[in-house]
């Protein structure tokens, strides 16, 4: 069995979100980078769990990123995975990125392609779905449980107002969320091993971008909190009804 895990680099969750060059570029000054939590905690660890059950399984990691994404991919390799591929581009157009990963996926004929639910920077949740369309594969989103039985995967996914279990034949693209796996911390052995695991760098294939970012804005800050006496909840109700008009 071959598994491909898509890994994205995102700013740390506490990073200051600011912009430069006339608000057209994310300000990377002083920003710590992490593996996108959904990719790390759920997609990658689920792949590792599957390999622990079936040691013949092969896990490849793929990221579309510039050279500064290498520490992230090494950290992912320290958690697990046999080798990694970095496609040398810092595009943030989902379609372009999906095209790149699809090319790798086609060549590697993977049985399962895992992504995280979404990235915590652009929140587009689009790579998995796009990959499935380019590769003409089934796509299961928001998976929180998965069992394999030969060529069939039984996947539980979130739906509006509940959970649904479905069966799907491999190959399949799956986006992972909380519940799918238990978050892990890399150990010393893993970190040492990651140093010598193969990390292939490929140049991107031809693909046109379909979108471009024109500018960023930050939301206007709240004007300040109005404190209400804890002994006077009638006043809070009145404010919510008459001032905020939300109840």
């Amino acid at each position, binding site marked *: 069995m071959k598994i491909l895990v898509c890994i994205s680099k995102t700013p740390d969750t506490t990073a200051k979100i600011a912009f430069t060059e006339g608000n057209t570029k994310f300000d990377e000054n002083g920003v710590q980078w992490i593996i996108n*939590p959904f990719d790390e*905690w759920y997609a990658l660890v689920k792949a590792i769990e599957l390999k622990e059950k079936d040691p013949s399984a092969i896990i490849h990691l793929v990221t579309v990123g510039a050279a500064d994404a290498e520490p992230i991919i090494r950290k992912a390799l320290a958690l697990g995975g046999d080798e990694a591929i970095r496609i040398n581009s810092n595009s943030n157009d989902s379609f372009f990125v999906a095209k790149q990963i699809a090319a790798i996926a086609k060549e590697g004929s993977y049985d399962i392609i895992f992504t995280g639910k979404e990235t915590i920077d652009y929140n587009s*949740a689009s790579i998995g779905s796009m990959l*499935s369309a*380019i590769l003409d594969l089934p796509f299961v989103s928001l998976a929180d449980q998965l069992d394999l039985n030969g060529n069939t995967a039984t996947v539980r996914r979130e739906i509006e107002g509940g959970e649904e279990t479905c069966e799907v034949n491999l190959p399949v693209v799956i986006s992972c969320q909380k519940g799918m796996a238990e978050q892990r911390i890399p150990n010393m052995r893993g970190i040492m091993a990651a140093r010598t695991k193969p990390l292939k760098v490929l140049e991107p294939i031809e693909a046109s971008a379909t979108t471009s970012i024109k500018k960023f804005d*930050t939301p206007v800050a709240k004007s300040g909190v109005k404190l209400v006496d*804890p002994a006077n909840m009638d006043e809070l109700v009145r404010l919510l009804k008459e001032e*905020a008009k939300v109840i």
Partner: protein
Amino acid sequence: MVLVYIDQADQQIKKSSLEAMSYGAALAKQLGCDVAALVLGTVQDNLAELGKNGAQKVYHLKNESLNSLDVKLHSTLIAHAAKNVNATVVVFANNINGKAIAPAVSVKLEAGLVSGASSLPNTENGFVVTKTVFSGKAFASIQIETPIKVIAINQNSFGLVAYDSTATVEELNIPIPAASIKITKLEKVEGEIPLTEASLVVSGGRGLKGPENWGILLDLAKSLGAATACSRPVSDTDWRPHHEHVGQTGIQIAPNLYIAIGISGAIQHLAGVNRSKTIVVINKDPEAPFFKAADYGVIGDAFEVVPALTSAILKMKSTA
């Protein structure tokens, strides 16, 4: 033509899809073109009534096999229908189904996608859509460069617009390909308001001390008709189910009212809720960072304040 995908849960059209319909109608007006809805599967609603949300026409592919989400199948059919009617913009609600399907449709139509849109595009000079990024900590204006565009509009960001008309319904006759997945089990959460569709949300954090104390929060939610949410440690320790976890690594919501009880207001939590129109914070620590992001604050013990608030709401409702 602007084509709006209308989706369903349990054969009922979702509120977020009606918002997408209103958005699509406003967009069509802006572009000076027609607007239609596309419904897949069997729904109990009267489809002509989609006119009340702005649809002029409703295309309906009536087949029970389309009632639950199969991204491969749905995206194929939606792309097919979009080509048939020469849609130039396809609009989705950015809900669970829309998030899953819209990117696949954009590939099939070779269309640029903006998911998580927060307002109508600026079409003065190109086609620029604003979307939320960094889990709500910022907005990005994205230019779509392709002739066909796909937009998934955030829930609760455009609102419903009432129209005084009915739509004409046309049954579609598109061959339906084989399903790519087989549903084997369904676990519904009964009687709960889905968090992402809710306009009022009551949320609890570690300050409530344990799952046995959630009664006061549930009573408050019930008095308001609100959905319930929680902070990450609360769902990590299984005090509350995972689907209630809001924040940067949970779900992002933007209700009209978010009441945070015993939640400190960590940056990762705020990221998921800071687009709420009104935020009320109940916390016994006056230094809790959440007060900086709040509209109304109550410094006090949740175990006293929350039941008092519930009584005040019930009193207001009974006299209203």
